[in-house]
């Protein structure tokens, strides 16, 4: 087999499942170790370097890291990565002096950002320290975008939003609230902007065109309704509420409805469980509040008498399943469900009525701008997109990641360099050995199960709309949860020429992920692995031929718990435990590493 090239910056990065899964590639194990040391401020800053909003994301992130977490493959549940992020934010000391600051001297370039959501704020965060003047246009009276208008305050308190957005606007962003951009052409024509970034989100809730839709005013569009609640325009709802759709917006709608006085809230799902779009934890939180989730009901019509909404009719469906796939469905009966209000939460769409179609910005059939997937530049030079505006409704952390990428592009664009002159991704490795059997990380296996985040009691939480439900881990609970992290970023690095094939590493490996075997074709070698390869998508390390017998060392990275015992039992130091630092370029990095000679691939 072809030996693995560990200089490929993606090889060791992929081993750190959480970091690889995170769109912004936050160095999760590093900040978890800092939390373990009680260095909450440092942990916060490690987070902020890539995800910009640790306090916000520590509460409401879509957490792609957790399903990826290796702990979830070794035992039942992953590390509570997201809630540990919140611990770093909650318990941090004053770090304001360590935040990036706007450059003392401006570079004379102005950048316009449309919308003050996470994508635009990230662009501002990256460009202000480089000397750019950043003007953010926001239609509402508050910055934050969907983070503020669509995520209810009981999940994300306004104070947290204000603080973390304040770190960016406080750098001197020119934030123009209540200033919608009504014409991109006018903005471009106004001159003075070296680049325009569009982070205006996916602001239009999908409609459900069924009979009776327009006959009542008690039928609401989810995201618009949440926005009205967030800004205080809606303060009440009927007793019986139906939510159509089972995504995360639906979860926010049903829980908000309970806080506005609804007595019975039912979430109507077209499909059975397992096909819901909502994240498992958001479903769990809604069900904890006694929201009923009604499966296999497809909406058929709104029933309105004399202008009053009576309820809805549904077709009750039966599905035939083949594993996780629906193979057939049929209608069993039609049912009527009475209600006072209906909230539609069946998705969002992009809408750019303010972008003229003759500006050279092309859109696809879904009204999404055609973009370069790396630079996020549109088909018009100098106009960039990011966040939901770029790709349709996704999540905050992707918006942040795209904001970083776009900021780098904008910097290149403004400096007159080609947008593909981006520094490469890189990995550097640093040994963690500090003694014969000592490593500067805690490598002992801790078998405890995932700690639960305490919630405020059901009695307390409905008193006001903004009573935060999750209380977050306290320091003691966090100290237990951090021990579950397997430190996947402390890599097992193998140097074939040192190996004497004594088998010590194979014998000590608790999960049998190592094999020394004869070289051969990949399928043959994989068949000889000491433990079956359960997840072929996980990387396989293949060494160069070993000195004594010419066999190869193969490591299935899948279930490695990074206990370091292979390195501890190695008599020749062929194995070493090294921390991998993944470098994803951000705006300004290209100026710091000019010329191919200085572009170091780890």
């Amino acid at each position, binding site marked *: 087999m072809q030996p693995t090239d560990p200089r490929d910056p993606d090889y060791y990065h992929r081993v750190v499942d959480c970091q690889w899964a995170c769109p912004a590639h936050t160095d999760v194990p590093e900040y978890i170790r800092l939390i373990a040391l009680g260095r909450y401020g440092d942990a916060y800053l490690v987070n902020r370097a890539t995800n910009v909003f640790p306090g916000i994301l520590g509460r409401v992130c879509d957490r792609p890291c957790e399903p990826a977490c290796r702990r979830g493959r070794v035992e039942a549940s992953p590390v509570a990565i997201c809630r540990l992020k919140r611990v770093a934010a909650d318990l941090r000391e004053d770090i304001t002096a360590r935040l990036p600051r706007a450059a003392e001297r401006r570079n004379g370039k102005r950048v316009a950002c449309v919308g003050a959501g996470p994508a635009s704020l990230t662009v501002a965060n990256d460009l202000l320290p480089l000397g750019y003047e950043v003007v953010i246009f926001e239609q509402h009276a508050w910055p934050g975008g969907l983070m503020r208008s669509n995520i209810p305050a009981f999940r994300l308190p306004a104070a947290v939003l204000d603080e973390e957005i304040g770190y960016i606007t406080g750098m001197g962003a020119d934030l123009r609230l209540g200033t919608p951009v009504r014409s991109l052409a006018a903005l471009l024509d106004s001159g003075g902007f070296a680049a325009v970034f569009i982070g205006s989100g996916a602001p239009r809730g999908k409609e459900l065109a069924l009979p009776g839709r327009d006959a009542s005013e008690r039928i609401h569009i989810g995201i618009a309704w949440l926005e009205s609640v967030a800004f205080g325009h809606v303060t009440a709802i009927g007793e019986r509420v139906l939510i159509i759709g089972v995504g995360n917006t639906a979860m926010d709608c049903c829980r908000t409805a309970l806080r506005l006085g609804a007595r019975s809230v039912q979430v109507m799902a077209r499909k059975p469980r397992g096909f819901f779009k909502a994240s498992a934890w958001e479903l769990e939180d809604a069900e904890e509040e006694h929201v009923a989730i009604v499966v296999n009901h497809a909406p058929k019509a709104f029933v309105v008498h004399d202008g009053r909404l009576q309820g809805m009719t549904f077709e009750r469906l039966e599905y035939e399943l083949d594993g996780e796939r629906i193979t057939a469905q049929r209608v069993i009966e039609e049912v009527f469900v009475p209600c006072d209000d209906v909230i539609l939460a069946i998705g969002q769409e992009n809408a750019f009525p303010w972008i003229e179609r003759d500006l050279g910005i092309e859109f696809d059939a879904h009204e999404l701008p055609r973009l370069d997937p790396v630079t996020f530049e549109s088909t018009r030079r100098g106009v960039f997109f990011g966040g939901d505006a770029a790709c349709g409704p996704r999540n905050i952390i992707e918006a942040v990641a795209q904001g970083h990428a776009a900021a780098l592009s904008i910097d290149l664009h403004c400096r007159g360099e080609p947008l593909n002159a981006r520094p490469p991704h890189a990995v550097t490795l640093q040994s963690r050995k500090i003694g014969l059997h000592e490593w500067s990380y805690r490598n002992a296996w801790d*078998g405890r199960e995932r700690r639960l985040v305490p919630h405020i009691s059901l009695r307390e939480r409905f008193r006001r709309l903004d009573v935060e439900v999750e209380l977050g881990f306290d320091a003691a609970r966090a100290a237990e949860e951090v021990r579950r992290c397997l430190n996947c970023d402390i890599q097992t690095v193998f140097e074939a020429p040192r190996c004497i094939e004594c088998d010590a590493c194979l014998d000590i490996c608790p999960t049998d992920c190592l094999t020394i075997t004869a070289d051969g074709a990949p399928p043959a070698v994989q068949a000889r692995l000491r433990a079956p390869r359960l997840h072929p998508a996980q990387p396989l390390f293949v060494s160069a031929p070993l000195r004594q017998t010419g066999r190869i060392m193969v490591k299935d990275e899948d*279930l490695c718990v990074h206990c370091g*015992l292979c390195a501890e039992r190695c008599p020749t130091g062929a194995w070493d435990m090294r921390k991998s630092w993944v470098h994803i370029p951000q705006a300004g990095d290209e100026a710091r590493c000019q010329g191919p000679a200085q572009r170091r691939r780890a």
Partner: protein
Amino acid sequence: MSFLPKPKVAHPGLPLNALGLNRRDYEGVMSTLCAGCGHDSVTAAIVQACFELELPPHNVVKFSGIGCSSKTTAYFVAGAHGFNAVHGRMPSIASGAHAANRHLHSIGVSGDGDSLSIGLGQLAHVIRRNPRMLYLIENNGVYGLTKGQFSASADVGTRSRRGDVNEQRPLDPVLLALALGAPFVARGFSGDREQLVPLLKAGLSSGGFALIDVLSPCVTFNDHEGSTKSYAYVREHREAPVALDYIAPRRAIEASYAAGEVLPVTLHDGSRVLLRKLEPDYDPTDRTRAAAFVQERALANEYVTGLIYMEPERRDFHTRHNTADAALNALPFARLCPGAGKLAEILREFR
């Protein structure tokens, strides 16, 4: 050595044997030997063999004397019985235990110091007694615990780590066992588990005294250039005249062999071994020729490994002495100790 215990977490795909145990269930405590010690590989091979033989841990008894090798009985089958004897006196303890309970699977682990120096007399006599036990000599040619002096198995010309040259003739446990009439003699290498595990399984099932000399490099004191028991030297200087495949009882022989190429031997517990000749003239049932072959190859600086000699039919200790089948602890007290009257009766027979 490592200070951390081996994590309890295991690969979810780890197979179970008929007892519902996985391989990890046959492990013992964490080894405190030097990292890279050959003995740890032998331990891992024993774990593998016991798992594959589906031995109930409480039916296993482990014996050892003193030395690096003798520490290893703590590192496998934690649920087994064990006795860590005085230096070189393990064979007596093992014989006594086997006399008291013939149904236990006995595993004795010793080293070149424990068996070939201080315990040589004990080894010679346990071979003569022929109890049913697997006797391993983890042979590295040096006294590791006392910082690497030459042991009785060090070859002439071997250079110690500090440069001294050994001039005394070595004792070869394989030749010794052949000379003393051991019914099962083999040599393994800690760095070749594919060969060692079937040997261990066959030895445990052989029904008599099975001696396996395992070349097990001392990574600290005898793994340098000039050593004849280093990983690199043994890898380059070994040959096997016979390959042994172990077939569990009631398991069909899956591979097909040409006639005359394979000698199947049924063992005491119904399992079988297939002896495949790699050296056409070699006969593993001919004791004299086997000894001659080992000596010849030794002159050419080659270790003969794999199965060296096997005697299918041989009366073991219990058959010879016509002892009770039941373990002594299972006999009713009245039968175990018939009393003063019965003793007087027996004594009268000798008057």
